[in-house]
């Protein structure tokens, strides 16, 4: 069998090896994360970004819930249920925006794969990996990085991300509404109460410090002025 023929037969094997090794790498990464959970995890885990999950469906559902929840209000009767329905509607909306974002964000991988295969073919390596794994990976990484960055600067990506952010904030805001209602029912101070207290505290500090500066301004040598610290 000629070398050309061997190459065509071995290519799927090499691809299979590649897939297996990537799986091993992924498993190793998981083990690393597990190990970190006992040591460096408190801050590392906090930094893991939320991974996009499945594809939500149900724009109509969220719209219907919205209409129901925004319907005539009967004083405070069913107010919690109304708020929870709104939060659920916002969750559905957020899932849908997440799906749209995931679709836009994953688009460059196909282009990166195409470019990578072309680059490998151009070097004469064909679809099989080159002998130097790190060089091959570096090429893949470089191409992928370029494509991901190119995609991030497109209007469609920025728009999808903005809509996801808006939906996420709407969900969080409606969850806060539920929490506020529950806290109010239990006679507990709410987050809005906390914000109001800190606002007053901040303004009070500013007033005190403005007065302090006024007093200092009357001191001829500011280098010797004492501040309340």
């Amino acid at each position, binding site marked *: 069998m000629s*070398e050309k023929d*061997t*190459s065509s037969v*071995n290519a799927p094997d*090499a691809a299979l*090896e590649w897939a297996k*090794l990537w799986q*091993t*790498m*992924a498993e*190793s*990464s998981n083990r*690393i994360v597990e190990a*970190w959970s006992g*040591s*460096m995890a*408190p*801050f*590392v885990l*906090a*930094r893991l*970004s939320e991974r996009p999950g499945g594809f939500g469906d149900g724009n109509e559902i969220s719209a219907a819930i919205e209409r129901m929840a925004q319907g005539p209000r009967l004083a405070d009767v069913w107010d919690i249920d109304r708020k929870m329905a709104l939060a659920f509607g916002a969750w559905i909306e957020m899932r849908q925006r997440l799906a749209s974002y995931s679709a836009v964000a994953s688009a460059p991988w196909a282009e990166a794969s195409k470019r990578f295969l072309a680059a490998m073919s151009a070097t004469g390596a*064909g679809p*099989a*990996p*080159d*002998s*130097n*794994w*790190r060089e091959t*990976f570096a090429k893949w*990484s470089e191409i*992928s*990085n370029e494509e*991901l*960055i*190119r995609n*991030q*600067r497109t209007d469609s990506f*920025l728009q999808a991300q*903005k809509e996801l*952010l808006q939906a996420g*904030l709407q969900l969080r*805001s409606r969850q*806060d509404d539920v929490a506020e209602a529950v806290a109010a029912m239990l006679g507990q101070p709410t*987050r809005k109460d*906390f*914000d109001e207290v*800190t*606002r007053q505290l*901040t*303004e009070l500090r*500013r007033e005190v*410090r403005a007065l302090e500066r006024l007093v200092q301004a009357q001191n001829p040598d*500011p*280098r*010797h*002025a004492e*501040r309340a*610290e």
Partner: protein
Amino acid sequence: MSNQENKASRFVRDMAANTEKMLRATELIARTRDEDVNIGTTPKRLVMRRDKVELFHYEPMAEATARTPVLLAYGLIGRYTMADLQPDRSLVRSLLSKGLDLWLIDWGQPGRTERWLTIDDYVDDYIDAAVDRIRRDTGHDRVTLLGICEGGVFTTCYAALHPEKVQNLVLTITPIDFHADVKDEAAHHGFLNIWTRSLDPEDIDKLVDTYGVLPGEFMSSVFSMMTPMRSLTKYNVDLIDVVDDEAKFMNFLRMEKWLADRPHHPGEAAKQWLKELYQENRLVHGNFVLSGRSVDLGSITAPVLNVFALDDHIIPPDCSRTLGAKIGSNDYTEIPLPGGHVGLFVSSKSQGKLSQSIADWLLARDATFASKA
């Protein structure tokens, strides 16, 4: 065996070896405790506390060469520990070893309690209080300000609003023209500018009103997006490069610790930062207002040193360069250095260049000041 089979075989062997290295990295990480990874260790003394903000004075490491005390101010995105990551990669330590009298303002860990703080508070209250305290403790009428990134914007504003208290202004990786990223053709530069402009002002309001802050985790995810493949590979493939070298491995962990220590940005100050500066570009247009006064860059009369990184993907160089044409001072020096936003401070290649540039420039000004005195 054919040539192609040899390649595939070598490839598989390489991968097996690398997988083994990753397993060793796992064991190494499992053995390393949080307290083993120390950053910001250069000795310093707490001088003043104001709310959550603390003023520190670093212990001298060499005979004094510069007369004027230097106040280092980092931004609210990230922490000052980037300037003191580890003993052999520390701007702080390097400046101290050159005989500078170094002070540090640490913003602490702002949370929802700091929601209502504005940049006005940071510039006209916290920095002003720190400057006054240094003036009082040292007997100097003026101090030198050394600002990093957002801290550079704060110190720039301070120098414009309180020129009588500023001896020199040293800026590093500081954005002045927030729209100058459009001049930069490098595709990986300026995503933060583009991303912020893509948002509606109401989105920023809602983000801050919902969380009370600009969440640190949120900004971390935006920064991760700016180096996408690096973010995907650093906990797996990249570990292969450091696992055999304990020093490199610890460098990696220290860097991770700094990256993870990203405090929340106070809410109202974040609105100013993102809307008034990133979106509306008010600082360079002269309509950025703090405490009822417009920040006029032309009012900066102190000598200015502006250092920026040529491959800064977060603050494109052109965003920093603009300052020279806007200030009132005739003594303006620009030093472009190779490297990136963080690399300028922590990479082994850049060690010494930044601190030497700053020290040389400052000592020249301090000598001038001394002779005049």
